[in-house]
């Protein structure tokens, strides 16, 4: 089952190399734009987190499938001091 064809591939052409460089550069810009957009969403996201934790305590959190468990107040996680990060 081992993949062997890939080991026999011809050397990458100049046009393929140029294509890669162009698109890697564009992807870097796209990534930066996504990070900026997600940073701007932070205040709204903070409200969503709050609502989510309220739901977990009232209707419950899904443990598996539709099985839910209400979490107790002492289980509610505390916001750490570090900046919240959603894009890595």
């Amino acid at each position, binding site marked *: *089952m081992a*993949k*062997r*064809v*890939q080991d*026999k*591939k*011809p050397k*990458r*052409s100049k*046009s*393929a190399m140029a*294509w*890669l460089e162009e*698109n*890697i550069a*564009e*992807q870097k810009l*796209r*990534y930066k734009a*996504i990070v900026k957009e*997600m940073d701007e*969403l932070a205040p*709204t*996201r903070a409200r*969503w*987190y709050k609502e*989510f*934790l309220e*739901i*977990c305590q009232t*209707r*419950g*959190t*899904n*443990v*598996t*499938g*539709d099985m*839910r468990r209400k*979490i107790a107040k002492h289980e509610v*996680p505390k*916001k*750490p001091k*570090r900046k*919240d*990060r*959603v*894009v*890595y």
Partner: protein
Amino acid sequence: MARPHIEPYVELNQPFKKLDLNGFKGSEYKVLSLDVDTGACTLKVQFKNGFKRNPGLSYSDMELFVLEGRVKVGKETWGRGHYAFIPAGMAIGAMSSAQGAEVLLMFNDSEPSFYESDKNHQLALTQAHVSMNSYLDAPWTSGAIVQPAASNGCMIKLLHYDPLSEAITFLYTLTPEFMQDNISYHDCCEESYHIWGTSWMMQFGDLPTGGYFWRPPYINHGSFRSKRGCIAFGRTDSKIHNYFHFNPWSSQAENMARSAAHLYRQRPMMYDWVASDGHNHPHGPEDFEHAHYHDDAQIRHLHGHPPSPIKSK
């Protein structure tokens, strides 16, 4: 660094570009994600009216999903919903599209490549080839393919399964008013393209029609909602396991440690064998959810440790 975390990305307002690589002239593309080391990529491609090319092969595994239009491939005609997995080195017939077509095109091992040939490479694993219409020929089934499971209302059609990595390719749908109130992450990369409809995740907001993500392992996503439902094309790069929790602030590193803690508890023999070979956390990794699990009698027993001594008062 492989592919970066691209989430969310809505491609509909982005322009197509000419794809001038050998075998793709007469088509245009957008990159959805690209592995900066290998060139492996997911593209949205438009085969323009009159696109034609001769039979040939790629040195990469290739997957194709038809979003709109028709493509003739050898003797087959691939229309909306057609899915194909073409193993590296397998020759496919001449391709053409009289009226044009729009597809998702994925190269799993390298940048797009094409070499004219009407014969398979002698090392091609042709038995892995799949060609089917996912809309017509595959049934919807429960999304509960693993435990812990997604909520009811998430349905999937399995299109491809890799027996070595357990990577899967699938269609999934969320029914209207779908909700799942937990946060999830996986050991695998996960990818999705929204064919139609909108879903919502607590970290990223709405993902509408044309929305896409490539998400590396151990990154929080969810809770989940879909007001009017959606249908999407999805893939993983290895076995998927749903790690659910309710800590919105856990980091990727903490999630990874928690997954290792799961392994310690749930596959103790495997954990011990892996941990004994060099690196180790002899008493189990940190788990932000169950900070003191190391002292649990059953967990200690699983790892061959004696029970905690009973302290006399």
